[in-house]
């Protein structure tokens, strides 16, 4: 019948099983939309998107200052930097590396500022598989509390040119 004009007076309220299903589906949609505000207040993992405008130069400058103040070592020419618990840390995404290597303490909380000095990049921490977007011009602040120790690779998961798959950084948690 769907190919033909419907009978006259087709307007009819839903009845029976159809009505029941619409009601059940509506309740389920409602439950799903309430889960998000619920988790926002009660859950521990949220993407709040705290953001400040920043130029590439200014962000690079802050990062260099941060590295100079907190440097504790070097791996393959990349500085290893240990911020004080509770403080701000800086992470630059650029074609094609993450700068610097961060060294954090288990159970402490850090405000990690991320920005790009060139293209869009994607912060993807493995193997937890936590993912955030990193854009040029935006200082994206992620407040993070490591709860496991070890070395965690950061991979780039937003396409950023030919070296995209080699853009690997590191977070060390002790």
């Amino acid at each position, binding site marked *: 019948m769907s190919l033909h004009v419907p009978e006259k007076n087709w307007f009819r309220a839903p009845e029976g099983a159809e009505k029941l299903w619409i009601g059940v589906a509506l309740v389920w949609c409602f439950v799903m939309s309430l889960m998000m505000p619920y988790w926002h207040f009660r859950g521990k*993992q949220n993407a709040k998107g705290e953001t400040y405008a920043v130029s590439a130069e200014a962000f690079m400058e802050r990062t260099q200052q941060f590295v100079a103040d907190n440097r504790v070592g070097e791996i393959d020419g990349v500085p290893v930097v240990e911020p004080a618990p509770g403080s701000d840390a800086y992470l630059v995404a650029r074609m094609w590396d993450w700068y610097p290597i961060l060294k954090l303490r288990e159970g402490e909380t850090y405000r990690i500022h991320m920005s790009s000095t060139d293209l869009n990049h994607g912060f993807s921490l493995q193997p937890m598989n936590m993912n955030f977007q990193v854009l040029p011009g935006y200082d994206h602040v992620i407040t993070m*509390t490591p709860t496991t120790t070890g070395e965690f690779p950061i991979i780039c*998961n937003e396409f950023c040119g030919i070296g995209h798959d080699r853009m690997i950084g590191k977070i060390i948690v002790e």
Partner: protein
Amino acid sequence: MSTVSTNSAALDSPGADSRTCGTTGLKVCLAAQRFIKLNAVAALVFLLLGGIAAILLALTRWQAVHLLPVDWFYRIITFHGLNMLIFWILFFEVAVLYFAATIPLKSRLFSRPVAWVSFGMMLVGAVMTNVVILQGKADVMMTSYLPLLAHPLFYLGIILVAVGTLIAVFNFFATLFIAKRDKTYEGSLPLVTYGAMAAAVIAVITLLHGAIVMVPTFTYSLGWTPEPDPMWYRMIWWGLGHMSQQVNVAAMVAIWYLIGYLAVGAKPVNETVCRGAFILYILFINLAAAHHLLVDPGVSPAWKMWNTSYAMYLAVLASMIHAFTVPASVEIAMREKGHSRGIFGWITALPWRNPGFSAAALSLVIFGFVGGITGVTLGTQQINIIAHNTMRIPGHFHATVVGGTTLAFMGLTYYVIPLIFQRDFIWRGMARVQPWLFGGGILLVSFGMSFAGSLGVSRRVHDIEYAGAYGPAAHLFLGLMGIGAIIAVFSLVAFVLMCVGTVLFGRKIEGRAMADWGVAESTVEAKPGSLAHAHWAMKGTMALTSVFLLCFAVYYFANWKALADVWPVQ
């Protein structure tokens, strides 16, 4: 037929350029027929190109095979995304619009020249974009996020395709207008046309977003204007990118209803409910761009939650309604035909050997159970943290736009070619298994991608070994995807060859009925119309939708649990 709008739109008026279909008895406007043919053939060509790209990609991501070198991988992924998601889908949708506005309404197409302009622009744009990509001047992915920059002709090509499509949509609405004006039909629009109209309304909003984002990017690429803000770009681009998916969903659902009617004789249990659900799509999809920006900077959590849930979940509600009404209409039709044994007895009696029907049925199941459930879950604000840009995302949309939309379009093609090109299909045995191969292959692709993504494997990455983060399980799932891809692409290529072969060499149908694919038969106990007021008779549908809801809830809450296990983050 002339385009002067004083001519009556009615196909039975004197001098109307039309023929009578030997199968359905419906009048077919010859202008509409020509443009349905042209757009469908173009669509099939792009599907084939995209399919060749698909196998190259899958065999590269299957790390044990790792076929393409790095530059070609990114080139081909750009090529695949655009040829499939944009060109194949849009050309086919234009064909569907021309069909839905003319044949069911017994109207002629509003204008032949307008249809030519539309087709010409779309074709030139698509070819231009493809040439630029293959020349290596646009290795930017179909999303082309700024500040990545492609050759200006890449953007111009996409703009031409978008504007060409808008012109076709205009032709569609103009046809609806003249049909109404000249009273070629009495009463309300048929459901199929109504669904196509919903798709067309959303397409207009979508394509306007496309213009807003692509035009300044094009002028920037020429050095005429300053660089648009990259975050602004993402937001408006997804206004195009996501909403266009709702066009696909609306078109796909309209096809489910149509094939339910053609193969089983199903009619909607309640027209009001079906139409209302289409309205929900129109009203509540415009904000769904949000669920691509859930872990982005610069947008507040309140904005993300509101736009991903309020708006999205009422569109989800619409899909859940169709997921009930479509099988319910089929079940009622089957029970009235006398297939009333038990809860599921009607299912075994369905015309499963009819490729149009099996494609539509598989499309509904894959879209609902895999695409829909994963989509809503991944689009949940916080859950997106453990999914964003991983292989879970292509795992999701290969179940919606491939297992769902593409398979439904294939199903319709099994009717379009005999009815519009007037040729009987060749290789009918192959045709009967083709939807099953495609659906099965795509399910493997989708599962392989999704599980690899859950293990952290990122999408759009040439080589995952540099990360040193993935074990044998991730490789196993990428292999599973590869095997699924071989099956799916085999079936896709067979489909295109079959269609082209039929158009060229199939037995001509002139005046006679098409060779039937098989419809649901009536038994001696058939009682047509007996269940018109039996509002609880669709027992099988109730059972299936209950299972569906259960799967949905389990998957949804399992993901919250997985999220709770990662590091606290604000």
